[in-house]
């Protein structure tokens, strides 16, 4: 691949926009939040985000937003990923590695089934607002 210029990038963006507008999506957004505090990073959150992005790109769903959060108080089960998708309960996954990240994309976001053994939806006591 030759070096991409800003102009190339702009053109690619336009093509992608067109593709997205032709695809039939019902306008409902999925939100994926990866914990990127010191604890998350030390446990491998960077790789998890990388895998999530790659899988979501493969799946081709453009209605997904990826955000990074700081520590959410679940340091003992980092890396953590929170998924909010229509038709599913808001879920926090813990002990996520590359394989689990793939499962979250295909099983949770695409097929609508929880990835059972990794659900850790109760934040630790020190972060719950009194």
């Amino acid at each position, binding site marked *: *691949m*030759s*070096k*991409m210029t*800003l102009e190339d*990038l*702009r053109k*690619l*963006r336009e093509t*992608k926009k067109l593709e*997205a507008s032709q695809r039939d999506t019902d306008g409902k957004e999925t939100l994926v939040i990866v914990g*990127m*505090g*010191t604890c998350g*990073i*030390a446990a*491998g959150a*960077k*790789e998890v*985000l*990388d895998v999530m*992005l*790659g899988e*979501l*790109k493969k799946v081709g*769903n*453009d209605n*997904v*937003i*990826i*955000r*990074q959060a*700081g*520590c959410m*108080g679940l340091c003992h089960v980092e890396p953590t990923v929170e998924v909010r998708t229509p038709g599913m309960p808001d879920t926090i996954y813990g002990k996520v590695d590359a394989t689990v990240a793939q499962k979250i994309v295909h099983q949770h976001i695409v097929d609508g089934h929880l990835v059972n053994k990794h659900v850790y939806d109760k934040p630790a*006591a*020190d*972060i719950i607002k009194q």
Partner: protein
Amino acid sequence: MHFSLCDCILDLVQNSVEAKAQEIRLILKQSEDSFIVCIDDDGRGMTEQELKAATDPFYTDGKKHIHRKVGLGLPFLIQTVSMTEGRFDIQSEKEKGTSINIEFNFKNIDTPPLGDVISLLYQVMCFDGSFNLIVERSYIDDRGTDSYKVDRKEMQEILGDLSRVSSLSLLKDFIISQEEELKTSWSSTS
């Protein structure tokens, strides 16, 4: 401790974003022997005492996590640098900003691996917030310097919301192509 140097850097940039910085500059200068990292921000900064405390692993202001007794971001970095004969310097002024200068020493066997620069760069770009971030990445050898620059505002103007999967993957492709070009020019000159 963090596994790679890029993990340390991601942690530091996150500090700048959390300190409400509007302008962040990240400089990564790599050579065969060393990796120089500078992070400058105009965030809320620290007083002399706060700065001293921030480098102590058993200090935290206790605001973010009320029962927590440790703050490990900076201490991890200082530990890494001091055990590998690197260099670390931090300057901070209250309400003005913070500036960090690090030199990692590739010659020391205990220096952690560099890690994944590509994921580091696209991930710092998609932190939440209205800040601008300019990354200057370069590789230096005795024949000269090759470099590229990524500007968050410019990327947002071209790609729209960077947290959207399609925009983020394009951003990643862009950074991959810049990084590959950098690597091609290293190998062709050596």
